[in-house]
């Protein structure tokens, strides 16, 4: 469960970062449009937070020896998913970004137990 929420967090984190990039933002909101600076900062901070939480979840799941290795693998998988989705279904990335929130809650409860 912890690994799964770690994966969801990594996906959300990357998705948040990808959505603020000019090219992908324009793909969703129309050509030439740019993300305003405040939203961009907010999404990017959330994105980094998601990646950080996913790291903590991996450490919680597999310990300091194997957790980081697991995290690297999950990051790659999440990044490929975001890449393909941004190309073929860019709107789905925007609509699925919220899964990071329940994943963060779940990971926190599991870790605090």
């Amino acid at each position, binding site marked *: 469960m912890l690994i799964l929420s770690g994966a969801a967090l990594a996906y959300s984190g990357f998705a948040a970062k*990808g959505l603020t990039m000019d*090219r992908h933002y324009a793909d969703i909101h129309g050509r030439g449009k740019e993300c305003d600076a405040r939203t961009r900062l907010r999404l990017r901070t959330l994105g980094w937070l998601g990646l950080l939480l996913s790291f903590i979840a991996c450490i919680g799941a597999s310990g300091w020896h194997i957790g980081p290795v697991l995290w690297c693998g999950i990051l790659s998988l999440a990044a490929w998913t975001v*890449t393909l989705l*941004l190309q073929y279904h860019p709107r789905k990335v925007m609509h699925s970004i919220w899964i990071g929130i329940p994943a963060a809650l779940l990971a926190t409860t599991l870790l605090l137990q």
Partner: protein
Amino acid sequence: MKEGLRQSMAWVHTWSGLLVCWLLLLVFMGGTASYYKHEITFWMKPELHKAADAPSRVTPAESATLAVRELQQQAPKANAWFLDLPHERNPLIYASWTNPPKKGMSREERRAAFRTQNFTLDPMTGLRTTAPRDTRGGEFLYRLHFDLYYMSAIWGRWIVGIAAMCMLVAIISGVITHKRIFKDFFTFRPKKGQRSWLDAHNATAVLALPFHLMITYTGLVTLMFMYMPSPTKVLYGEKQNVMFSEVFPNAERVKPARQAAPLADIAPMLQQAERAWGQAPSRVVITNPNDANARVEMHRPAGQQLSNIEPTMIFDGASGALLSQATPPSTALAARAAIYGLHVAHFADTLLRALFFVCGLAGTAMVATGALLWGVKERQKYAKVIAKGGKVGFGVRLVDALNIGAIAGLPIAFAVYFWANRLLPVELAARSNAEANAFFIAWGAAAVLAQIRPTRAMWRFQLTLGAVLLAGIPLLNTLTTNTHLGVTLFGGPGLRPVAAFDIVVLLLGALLGWAAWWLGRKAKKQAAKQPAEVAQATKLEAA
């Protein structure tokens, strides 16, 4: 330096990558398969499947007792016994032994003898399983990925080492030369020719960069004593063996006392180790059995740490008393063991192993797209010549042909290796060598055909052949064994590796089939476009 850093790094990246990419494809594919080398070996020995079907109900201590009883009958005078007990990835009991070397026996003869000195027990019945067919299984693919074949291992390791060094250079120069590494982080633009290939190359490379860097660097470290012999030569001179026994104290052997003493019961020793670790040992090595100086070495199963050297407990074989828990290794040795461990990933559970496998496939894709990209780029220089009906230069033709032979040809070779395993007669002499030969005959044929006609039709032909062969494996398994998907999917957990193997090759076959279909569609589109262009041109001329 006249040009900027980026341009010169682009040059380094192109050539360090291109020169070794076909060998790297072999190394990557072989290495990726090796993450499942036990499962592959098990799949390739269908005689063992029946015994693995029923879930094991005996305890590790009972398994070890069974194996020792059988070894006492088979090889009471051996100088060492090796037991592999059932655990997660291994449903059966494997036992093997080494005999004291007879005088005048060559190394090859000793190795050949060792290959016959083993048996497999069914943990349910305690009886021997049917003798499995002679195959090297996944071990062949594992060895192939750093020893190559048809040459001495030393030569193979040097060649692979140089290729790995080039790979490391290519990775680092590639990162430097990639202008928009963050801006293009999630970018993939299909159907845009060279741009799409570059995007695919970047996505497979950058997004799994930690894996690629790790696997290349750790791969070099695994053979560091060979690639960098100078420091140990300065310290130990000709006495390299002394160095190895000092650095790796586990290899230390106690000499037999030449005094007979019965071997103590193994079960209590095993239980003692199990209590200390919270899990039963997966491997037991007994040296000098039935001698006063017998030693029993228990190895903890992998899975808790990165290191490839697992903690051991050593018992006195005659009295059954615990002699030592292995001392914690020095920092340097621990670091090397962790680096080595990362490469071979013995610690990985099912999920992590699958992630390693996928990253390995991504590495293969990275090398393949890089190799293709060179051809796509070079071809543009000939755009005008081709338009006039001329031919591309020798270099482009050669690279195209090598690309077909490696990217489309290697999957054929892997598939043929598995087909040979099922189709070659079981009683064939030197059967495991024949399987390896089948691999290279198939690969050689694909490579030669590609050199003769490096065309798009050849791409499609070889990709389709690879797809049919790989996807046909589950069907072949149905026709030649009793453990096909219909059985293994509903069977015991011991048969899961067999089912997984069938499904994975089916998926890989589907992937190749998709690539062949995609190429065919592209060819059709171009064919449709060309007459239209010609018609337009004639219209223009008429006007």
